[in-house]
């Protein structure tokens, strides 16, 4: 089962999204996500499976 991670933008503009908006792993495919989290730019908010997404 493949996990899909979502992230909330905490400040600034990250991946073209502003604070409060949501990014996915795909949006951050070329980014160093650990650095974004430790820099306070984003925080992980959910971990969904592809199965969960299909059910929504």
């Amino acid at each position: 089962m493949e996990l899909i991670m979502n992230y909330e933008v905490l400040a600034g503009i990250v991946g073209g999204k502003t604070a409060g908006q949501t990014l996915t792993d795909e949006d951050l495919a070329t980014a160093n996500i650990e650095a974004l989290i430790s820099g306070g730019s984003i925080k992980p908010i959910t971990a969904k499976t592809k199965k969960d997404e299909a059910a929504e």
Partner: protein
Amino acid sequence: MALTTQLNNNVSVTINSVDLSDQVTSVTINQQFDELETTSMGATAHTFVKGLESSTITLDFLNSYAASEVAATLQAAYGTNVQCVILPVKGTAVSATNPQYTATILVNNLTPVNGAVGDLSTQSITFTCTSTVAVSTTA
């Protein structure tokens, strides 16, 4: 033909997907490659061929310590390779007249505290590119 000029006041700079444009005061992409000498006996001038690309990107920053701003973004990426994307005119579609430059840079040579009393805290960093500089004219 009319002369086309470019006012350099709206360049978009994104490092590790974080938009730092409003904290950047100067941008310089130096596209270069190693020149490998091939001069041989009988030559009357030095000759060279293209070697590996060794480009650099120099950015002047206004130091700012809030989340998603200069210090936090660079410190978190210190010592790692991250993507840097530069667009001459922010908010305008990538095109032949607004080409997008993308490179992987090694985040190094930080000076997060810099300046004398009364000065604005700034840092000018020349990042070594660890990839070629890709130039895209389509989104």
